């Protein structure tokens, strides 16, 4: 084995450091999915009748839908009756202060590097935390309330702002959209809800941490963000899960709505457990994320750093309906060992002078497969729409794969669409050059990979960028020699 092969190997066999399990009692629904399960979830959450109806309708549709098979991913059939659809850390009661949160749960979040207390007070990030199926704690709620910003768990929003939830739920991702969106619509348990009123610039980053803890539990969260006219919000999402030999399912739906002159910036650092070096275990991540620039001059920007999950199936998209609206997608997807990622975006141009930018960076190591799949669609009425796409792939070693599937549908002659794509391998020459300057191979790879991702990382909020950079290093640890 050559040195560089060894370094690739070393960099790709790094351990997952969030693989611990929290010993906390939980209130669980029995395994399996029937109408009764859905009624149970709905009654546990004390939901209004219309929401139960919504769920049951989605369940009916889901049962009729075929499993999607078009993605470049391979996995054994999922037995949806073997999954637990509701699990809440006990004791489940209304939490008034942090002191009432189960200390084991708090310990978990400390281990994850999410101290709920002082550090967040200092850094000024409002955090909502979702463990398995329920939201555990939201910080800063009151302070945000003063500005009229609603930020908290989805369940809370259903109780306190049902009119908003009813108005927007399913308005961007209808339950008929796809198989996993339908499943989510039937069984979603919690998630985050965020509403920014007219003219308000949210003064802090809003952040949600998702954590799957229980074995055999699926996590189905629902996130809804509404930005009223001339408002702004930056939202961060982080995800981790324990190390388990079985695969676990995560099927979330995220909907963003930006009205006139509003801007939503949505950043994700996804680090679900990717499975071990032999390909055992790991999270199946089937997520539907979509935003609509409903108003004129509105803007939605997705930034994602995807390092985890055994399978990632995810296409954060923008519907550019308002004239002059802007959609952006910046993505770094790292796959290692036996991970499979099929990710990308859809930019649907409907309004005039709409603009979209896609920058996708795929890094494959080990025996993994990394695919970019993107659609740029220009509708008839989208006069002078503009798109720029750049998809770059970097290969570490010779057992991994990178694939690019760009789709373009253009129905307006005044549109301008640009697409650039490159595939490169970290060359022996680059590594040797770095070595000759005294730089060790591991460090050289980290340097080259970070350089490769630079124009995506630059779009992450500062503190997230630091975390993402570290994550890149951990994910590729042991992958190069």
């Amino acid at each position, binding site marked *: 084995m050559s040195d560089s092969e060894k370094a690739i190997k070393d960099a790709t066999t790094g351990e997952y450091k969030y693989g611990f399990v929290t010993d906390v009692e939980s209130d669980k629904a029995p395994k399996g999915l029937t109408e009764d399960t859905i009624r149970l979830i709905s009654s546990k959450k004390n939901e209004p009748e219309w929401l139960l109806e919504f769920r049951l309708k989605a369940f009916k549709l889901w049962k009729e839908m075929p499993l999607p098979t078009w993605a470049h991913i391979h996995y054994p059939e999922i037995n949806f009756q073997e999954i637990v659809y509701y699990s809440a850390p006990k004791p489940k009661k209304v939490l008034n202060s942090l002191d009432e949160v189960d200390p084991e749960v708090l310990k978990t979040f400390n281990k994850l590097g999410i101290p709920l207390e002082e550090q967040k007070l200092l850094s000024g990030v409002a955090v909502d935390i979702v463990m398995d199926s329920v939201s555990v704690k939201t910080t800063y709620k009151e302070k945000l309330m003063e500005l009229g910003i609603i930020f908290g768990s989805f369940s809370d929003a259903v109780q306190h702002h049902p009119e908003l939830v009813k108005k927007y739920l399913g308005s961007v991702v209808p339950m008929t959209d796809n198989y996993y969106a339908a499943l989510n619509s039937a069984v979603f348990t919690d998630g985050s809800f965020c509403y920014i009123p007219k003219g308000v610039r949210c003064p802090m980053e809003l952040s949600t941490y998702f954590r799957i803890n229980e074995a055999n539990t699926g996590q189905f969260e629902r996130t809804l963000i509404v930005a009223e006219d001339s408002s702004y919000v930056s939202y961060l999402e982080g995800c981790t899960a324990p190390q388990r030999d079985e695969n676990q399912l995560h099927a979330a739906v995220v909907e963003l709505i930006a009205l006139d002159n509003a801007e939503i910036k949505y950043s994700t650092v996804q680090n679900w457990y990717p499975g071990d070096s032999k390909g055992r275990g790991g999270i199946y991540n089937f997520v539907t994320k979509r935003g609509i620039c409903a108003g004129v001059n509105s803007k939605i920007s997705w930034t994602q750093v995807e390092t985890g999950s055994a399978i990632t199936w995810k296409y954060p998209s923008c519907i550019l309906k308002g004239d002059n609206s802007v959609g952006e997608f910046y993505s770094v997807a790292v796959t290692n060992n036996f991970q499979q990622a099929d990710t990308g975006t859809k930019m649907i141009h409907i309004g005039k002078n709409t603009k979209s930018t896609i920058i996708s960076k795929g890094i494959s190591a080990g025996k993994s497969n990394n695919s970019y799949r993107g659609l740029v669609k220009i509708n008839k009425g989208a006069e002078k729409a503009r798109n720029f796409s750049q998809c770059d792939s970097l290969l570490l070693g010779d057992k991994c794969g990178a694939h690019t599937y760009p789709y373009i549908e253009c129905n307006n002659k005044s549109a301008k669409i640009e697409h650039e794509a490159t595939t490169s391998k970290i060359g022996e020459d680059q590594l*040797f*050059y770095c*070595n*000759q300057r*005294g*730089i060790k191979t591991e460090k050289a790879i980290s*340097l080259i990979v*970070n350089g490769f991702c630079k*124009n995506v990382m630059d779009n992450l909020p500062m503190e997230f960028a630091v975390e993402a950079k570290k994550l890149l290093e951990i994910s590729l640890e042991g992958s190069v020699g």
Partner: protein
Amino acid sequence: MLKIKGLKASINGKAILKGLNLEVKPGEVHAIMGPNGSGKSTLASVLAGKEEYEVTGGSVTFRGKDLLDLSPEARAGEGLFMAFQYPVEIPGVSNINFIKTAVNEVREYNKMPPLETKEFMKLLKDKQALVELDGKLANRSLNEGFSGGEKKRNEIFQMAMLNPVLGILDETDSGLDIDALRIVANGVNQLKNKNNAFVVITHYQRLLDYIVPDFVHVLYDGKIVKTGDKKLALELEKKGYDWITKELV
């Protein structure tokens, strides 16, 4: 400081170096010349530790250590620097970030603390001036979109930053116009002192007008077949290599 004895090396089973001897002492400048395919670049690559080359015989000691036993980065740490004939590009990694990483890695190897930003910036400014490197290049991606001359100047700039004990210039003069050549040579001349040494590999005598060698060696078919002073280079320029090969027969 560098002692090469009977060095044999091959690539893909093909023997290139066939028993090469060379000794370099502190304060010396050695020029290595020779026709295409004689093994000049192979010698540089073997000394720097490039993996594709297999050493099949002989020994190399550098500052008392077995050089062939060290990894490429350890050789750099010991003070060996090679200016590449074809410097690589690394997109997204700024020139300044790259050289800072290199400087601090070499310092770490020598158990020295990393340079303070202020000291680093001062060093950077001084050395940029030395090779007349445009300050704007510092923030550009490493060698990306650099002209041929800028790339070579950047090599000498990096050499100045790392301040090696032994600098090997692998055909640094190829593709340079006369001004760039003068700047590169000037950089080397200023770095030269009684404690370091340079091995300059070149095709042409013209570089040696600027960097005056103490020794000129002719490499032919994997061996050094003739050694002289700077006059030998002039003779080669005039007569070509044929007379030497004829002499050998």
